[in-house]
């Protein structure tokens, strides 16, 4: 749970709450970009970030993102993160 997963920011969704849509392995998830929002939020669109428990914790370059994702897949952590995202969605929708 301490490892972040690389994702690409694809759109800003809620500027007031600093929320943006991130995409990883074809899965989309709304995340907070507060930790990496140095300038205009729109500038983040297209950038790669390390997403950790729903927050973009650092900006990384595309090569780093690819290498990290591969390492996470090897460790089974990538799937773990995607499963956790799905579980989170289910929890909000009332799943117990």
């Amino acid at each position: 749970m301490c490892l972040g997963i690389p994702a690409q920011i694809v759109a800003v969704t809620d500027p007031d709450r600093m929320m943006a849509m991130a995409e990883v392995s074809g899965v989309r998830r709304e995340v907070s970009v507060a930790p990496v929002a140095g300038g205009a939020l729109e500038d983040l669109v297209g950038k790669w970030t390390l997403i950790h428990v729903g927050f973009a914790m650092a900006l990384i370059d595309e090569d780093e993102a690819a290498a990290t994702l591969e390492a996470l897949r090897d460790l089974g952590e990538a799937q773990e993160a995607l499963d956790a995202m799905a579980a989170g969605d289910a929890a909000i929708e009332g799943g117990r």
Partner: protein
Amino acid sequence: MKYAEEFRDPKAAKALLAQIAAVADQIGARRDKPVRIMEICGGHTHAIFRYGLDKLVHEGIEFIHGPGCPVCVLPMRRIDECIEIAERENVIFTTFGDAMRVPGTKKSLLQAKAGGADIRMVYSPLDALELARRNPDREVVFFGLGFEATTPPTALSIQQAAREGLGNFSVFCNHITVPPPIRALLDDPHMVLDGFVGPGHVSMVIGTHPYDFISRDYGKPIVVAGFEPLDLLQSVLMVLQQIRDGRAEVENQYARVVPEHGNPVSLAAIADVYESRPSFEWRGLGEIDESGLRIREAFREYDAERKFRIGYGARRVPVAEPEGCACGAVMSGRMKPVDCPQFGRGCTPEMPLGALMVSSEGACAAYFQYGGARAVAE
């Protein structure tokens, strides 16, 4: 070596292993007189076993698995307190999935959920915030646990709750910090460590300076590392080179992600919302000064500890480990997982007796998954 073939760049791995062996020979590291390197982070422990790095490196190098698996160092009492809160009327208790199977003194969160408590696994504290928005008549509690990589997300979530005035949201804060247990380990006269591989994603938040004391006060090298296998090998080499050259420095192998001074937004959020507790209990390590965080008075409305009068601030009764569980000895490096009489017998990842078997980042689970068969074969 089965796993060695799976390296993305086997040539680079081979070259690094050869360099490591050369430096290990130069400093006289041998199987019976090993250089002991602690990887602090549980993610690193997992990667070391996944790739069999402990078997690939020169035989004079021994990895000691550090306290960096947050659910593994969580005392049973904290789980009991979670369950106490979760079983209260009208509460939705939310947690990262990792904590679900950690045994409490009577049951785990998973068992409490099966017994009827409304406990939900979430991916992010933001999921808990959303639950609070959608369920204004329920109390939504988020179990805040983990090191500095998960602390900013809960701090930022509490700030967001305060902005929205979400009075039915609170955090049960059991966040801990990396440097204090390292100091405690270094102060332990029985611990003989020669150097450290520092955590990557925690350091992305706090930077490299919080480790300065390791080199300055204790004369030990530390290299902050990424968690790809080549990162880990490179970092081990850097630690060995420091030892060979008589240096003790904080080096950053993972500079492509870890800034020297960390992430300013995250650090500001931590400082705004949290303060240090005088001391905090760690499973296997006992009480450690200034090693845990609590929510500041200014955010008291969002503090489950105050709201439910439960938790570390209210009661500090240490609870003995379950009979036969040697997690404490393993955690402090005094025992190898396979030497625990319960390992693979009374304690498996499916039915964990101790916390080190629960998480994939725990040393016992890593041994079991990747090293158990290997240990038997040897």
